[in-house]
């Protein structure tokens, strides 16, 4: 191959396609530059930064939505639009100039550094939807103030671009770049409440912990690249089989041990981002010190991106060979242990908390544990050898179900946690406190506050996993996957038992917040709380999906979409 051919291929083939797929990220980048320019030229008073950020995110969101619908409705193949949905998709596709050769063809882009498929699109869509909602929340709560707006939204959008890179990563270096790009702005966002001692402390702890985790992760990546001789994710499995020379996977094999060491070090980086035990120490402090809006953003967005990345990284080791199966079972059991620890410690530590944000931080640790169960089950099920007694179609179906459960959980979790953190942020503006005691008798205040209490009730019940809320079905799906995986490996029974017990335990501390709101008497000296009606409307809007995703046709819609996306991963 001559240089001429390489350059022609890049400029005429890869680059236009890559830019078409990458357009939403580029729009976000343009929005960041625009934020800075607008402040320099017009000042913050004439054009507030939040509107620029909101506009940029909305345009990017519609872009990803158009891409997703373009693939989902098979417009790229058939080119005919029959139903209203397909017509909308066709109109969006033409607005964003989507082509069958570009967005329509699934596969790697930017010389295979990034991956374009339904799985990536689903997560990019969820992330952008979430960022739109978070920006709307910051407009309503007034953090950041007008003067700091450009800085804050630059960090927020920068972090989002990093997450979108991370969910599409198809190369070990891109994994590191994505993780770092989403972490570094979030360190600054945690310390954004300048002058608050707690906030600075939280940011420092987060930064130091993050730097350590990133170092370990990078070392792990270099070990993997060193032993397998490639950075590309799709090639890892094949190279590992070659390196093993037909030997069995075990603790006496040097190549296997080195690779497992490398993968474990990479998992340290993931565990830090997912705040899994024993890498969770930063989480309660960071959430307590940061503004509730930032806490909400970190707890959902960076977790969703990390889970997508984790699934993609671990699925790189799928394949029918016996060595790969040994590796997957080993990792699956390891993740199951971490999941058990995270759930139990998160739930137990949440009992004694008096600060709502700390309580929610421990709750996110526990939920990361629940979601990790799906990954653990996935590793046990994927490409299980025929000797286990499962047919190929059964394995395919159950693998897709495990990923589907994780995606459904994340979608519901997005709304549950956003509602919980939004209520905390709004009540902070009204009562100037984030203690559970300050919520006493809030249900007796004005109608908008009553609505807040109701939304909190839905979020908390959904977090516990009570029907008919979305959290119930999310938990059900993951538990079912683990149950099927228990058929293949006994350790999954233990995981299932621990998870079941934890779900029951977790009820108590969520109920403490609700008890304060609904049952405890109102303190006499408190002034009347006047939550604005607009804020109440916003909360009602984001709390509604929690209910709809549990008890309406939307539930099966999301399940079907998640299943469609998950199945594309295992073709």
């Amino acid at each position, binding site marked *: 191959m*001559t*240089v001429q051919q390489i*350059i022609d291929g890049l*400029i005429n083939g890869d680059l236009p396609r890559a830019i078409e797929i990458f357009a939403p990220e580029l729009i976000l980048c343009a929005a960041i530059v625009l934020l800075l*320019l607008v402040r320099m030229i017009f000042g913050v008073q004439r054009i507030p930064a939040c509107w620029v950020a909101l506009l940029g995110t909305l345009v990017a969101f519609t872009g990803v939505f158009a891409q997703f619908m373009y693939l989902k409705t098979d417009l790229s193949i058939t080119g005919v639009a029959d139903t209203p949905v397909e017509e909308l998709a066709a109109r969006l596709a033409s607005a964003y100039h989507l082509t069958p050769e570009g967005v329509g063809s699934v596969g790697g882009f930017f010389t295979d550094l990034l991956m374009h498929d339904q799985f990536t699109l689903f997560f990019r869509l969820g992330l952008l939807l979430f960022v739109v909602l978070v920006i709307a929340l910051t407009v309503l709560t007034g953090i950041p103030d007008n003067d700091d707006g450009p800085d804050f939204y630059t960090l927020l959008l920068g972090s989002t671009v990093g997450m979108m890179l991370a969910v599409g990563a198809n190369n070990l270096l891109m994994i590191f770049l994505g993780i770092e790009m989403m972490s570094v702005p979030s360190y600054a966002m945690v310390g954004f409440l300048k002058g608050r001692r707690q906030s600075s402390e939280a940011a420092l702890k987060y930064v130091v912990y993050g730097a350590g985790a990133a170092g370990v992760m990078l070392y792990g990546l270099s070990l993997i690249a060193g032993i397998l001789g490639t950075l590309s994710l799709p090639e890892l499995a094949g190279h590992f089989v070659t390196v093993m020379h037909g030997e069995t996977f075990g603790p006496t094999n040097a190549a296997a041990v080195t690779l497992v060491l490398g993968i474990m070090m990479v998992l340290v980086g993931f565990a830090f981002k997912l705040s899994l035990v024993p890498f969770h120490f930063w989480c309660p402090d960071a959430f307590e010190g940061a503004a509730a809006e930032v806490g909400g953003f970190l707890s959902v967005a960076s977790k969703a991106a990390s889970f997508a990345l984790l699934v993609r990284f671990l699925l790189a080791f799928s394949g029918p060979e016996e060595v790969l199966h040994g590796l997957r079972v080993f990792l699956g059991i390891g993740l199951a242990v971490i999941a058990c620890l995270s759930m139990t410690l998160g739930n137990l530590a949440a009992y004694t908390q008096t600060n709502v944000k700390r309580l929610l931080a421990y709750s996110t640790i526990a939920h990361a544990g629940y979601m990790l169960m799906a990954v653990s089950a996935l590793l046990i099920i994927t490409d299980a050898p025929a000797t286990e007694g499962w047919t190929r179609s059964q394995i395919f179906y159950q693998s897709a179900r495990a990923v589907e459960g994780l995606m459904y959980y994340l979608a519901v979790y997005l709304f549950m946690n956003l509602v919980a953190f939004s209520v905390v942020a709004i009540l902070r503006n009204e009562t100037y406190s984030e203690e559970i005691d300050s919520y006493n008798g809030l249900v007796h205040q004005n109608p908008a506050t009553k609505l807040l209490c109701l939304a909190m009730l839905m979020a908390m019940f959904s977090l516990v996993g009570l029907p008919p809320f979305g959290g119930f079905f999310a938990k059900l799906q993951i538990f079912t996957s683990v149950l099927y995986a228990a058929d293949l490996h006994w350790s999954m029974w233990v995981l299932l038992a621990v998870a079941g017990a934890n779900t029951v335990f977790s009820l108590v501390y969520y109920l403490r917040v609700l008890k304060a709101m609904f049952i405890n008497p109102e303190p006499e000296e408190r002034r009347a709380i006047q939550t604005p009606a607009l804020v109440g409307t916003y909360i009602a809007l984001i709390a509604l999906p929690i209910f709809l995703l549990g008890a309406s046709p939307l539930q099966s819609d999301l399940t079907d979409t998640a299943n469609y996306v998950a199945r594309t991963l295992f073709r």
Partner: protein
Amino acid sequence: MLDLNFHLVLAVIVGATLILLPLIIGKFVRPRIPTPEKDAVYECGEPTIGSSYIQFDLRFYVVALLFIIFDVEVVFFFPWATIFGGATQLSDASLTSDAVRMELTDKLTNFPAGTATAETMISAETAQTMALVGFADILVFFGVLLVGFAYVWSRGDLDWVRAMVAQAKQAAPSRRATPSLVETHEAQPV
């Protein structure tokens, strides 16, 4: 494997000996005459002023951070410059000698000399595309960098003491507020 371990042990032993030996020799040979001047903290030959554990201006950190950011970004220019330079050299159409072209191709693609053949050597047109695309890339990169720089400048992060600059701005009469200037002129005769 054993050979490698032996080398490692050998390197550690030799390294430790080479450091420790002069220290031990020095310990036995050197005279022991301590004076207050000898025990004092060494500060470039000057008498010390005081402890180095003092508070100093926070602005040092801000300026240092900004310096590092722009410094690191400029580092990215170096790999670009080598490629861009090679491509521009090759894009010269008057360079007709195949031997020179092959040599330059090897340099640009980082292969050992003599790898490129008449088929694989980079033609002037290809080099031209490469150079143009590279130039467009660096323009975008540098443009974003400049926006960041302008933003930092307009925010006043480059002013050494921000509070004093703000005071000076308030004290000086604003240039835009011409009506008030006229008023003061009219008021003066009274």
